[in-house]
């Protein structure tokens, strides 16, 4: 394998590109198609698009927008948000989506989850797990819209997802999401241990030190949000992605 993947995770809210902070207060960033076009030109490793309004409003995916986004991507695209049926998944794959990210389905309909793996293959099914460190320092499952996630610990959720045959997991530290405040070493080490499938970690990445640390502490790939859409202390909007030269110079991790 060449260098680990650095993956922009973009949030779409009713067709607009936004950025939340700890999954709250979405700030308008711009037009998602434009952003994807820029990432494509910059030869981004891969991209994840999450429709936060589809989850919240219990709607189906916006297939028309996804079709437009997929047509701009000459790299893999993972889509998540509002996927509820086999037909939703079928349409998404036919539009050019490479992988689908599922969250509440694990808790609400594990049978369909398993059927999706059987039909489309493990490598196409991603589990999206949001966690946070509570007041007492314990790592817990986080869910903004679905109270059912409280019924499973993050360990149980990963165990179940693994049994159902997922190909990859996106783990986000909801407590640091959007903050660029740095990453939580013990949390990363705790949740990434002993997972046989690739783990994409996100939440708090603000610079290459955070990227390197995430990889050293157990992530196989790093997801970035604010890091690739904001610049400077005033969070001016700027869609960017490191160049291959920057990667050569700044990427430096060591997994023991």
């Amino acid at each position, binding site marked *: 394998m060449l260098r680990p993947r650095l993956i922009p995770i973009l949030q779409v809210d009713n067709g607009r590109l936004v950025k939340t902070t700890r999954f709250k207060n979405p700030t308008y960033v711009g037009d998602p198609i434009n952003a994807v076009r820029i990432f494509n030109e910059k030869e981004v490793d891969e991209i994840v698009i999450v429709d936060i309004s589809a989850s919240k409003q219990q709607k189906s995916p916006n297939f028309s927008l996804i079709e437009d986004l997929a047509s701009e991507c000459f790299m893999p695209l993972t889509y998540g948000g509002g996927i509820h049926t086999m037909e939703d998944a079928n349409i998404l794959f036919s539009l050019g989506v490479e992988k689908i990210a599922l969250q509440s389905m694990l808790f609400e309909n594990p049978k369909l989850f398993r059927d999706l793996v059987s039909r489309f293959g493990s490598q196409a099914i991603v589990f999206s797990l949001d966690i946070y460190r509570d007041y007492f320092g314990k790592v817990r499952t986080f869910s903004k819209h679905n109270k059912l996630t409280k019924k499973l610990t993050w360990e149980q959720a990963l165990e179940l997802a693994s049994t159902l045959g997922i190909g990859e997991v996106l783990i986000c530290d909801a407590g640091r999401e959007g903050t660029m405040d740095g990453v939580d070493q013990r949390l990363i080490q705790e949740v990434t241990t002993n997972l046989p499938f*690739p783990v994409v970690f996100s939440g708090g990445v603000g610079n290459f030190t955070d990227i390197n640390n995430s990889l050293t502490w157990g992530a196989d790939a790093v997801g970035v949000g604010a890091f690739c859409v904001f610049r400077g202390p005033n969070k001016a909007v700027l869609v960017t992605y490191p160049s291959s030269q920057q990667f050569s110079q700044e990427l430096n991790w060591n997994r023991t």
Partner: protein
Amino acid sequence: MSNVKSVINMLNKIGFLAVAQQKPTELTSNAFIVLPGVGTFDQGVKELASSGWGNALKDAFATEKSIILGLCLGMQLLSEGSEEGDKAGLGIIPGHFKKFEIEENQTNMKVPHMGWNEVDFNDSILDFSPIKPIEQRYYFVHSYHYSHQNDDQVVGMSYHGSRFASAIKNKKALGLQFHPEKSHRFGAQLFSNLLTGTNA
């Protein structure tokens, strides 16, 4: 099945007219057939049978009128079979697919093989392309890999835990494990070379 749109997108972008065909029609000579695929082996076999493409591909291979390019699952379907499923593949390229195994000492190896990787092509690629690709990388996402017994079918090798054949061939059939349609300019360049090489 899925992925057809992505392939057409890329081919159109590099200036080639590509058409999706749900069912096989009269294939002209020098036709270039791309069999993409995302999904499970048995599902793929079922769809090849129900659409009629399974037999059409075998005929096309037998007459040697067309180049057949299998991508990812498409590559696997061209083979004799895979550990992933119970059904038989088309048998156009000899050999089988096995699941990646994580050995005891390989603590950081993950399955599926997911991400960007290199392919070390040998001269067999020159049967299909005017040049041998160098300094390129492609996107891989798969849990099963070609298990080669001899070198005749091998066109390119990659490394994930151990070396495995990531490009294979038999006569006018070529299988690529990775996704050129999702590999930016590297994939575009490869497609361009393959299509130029066959005067498509």
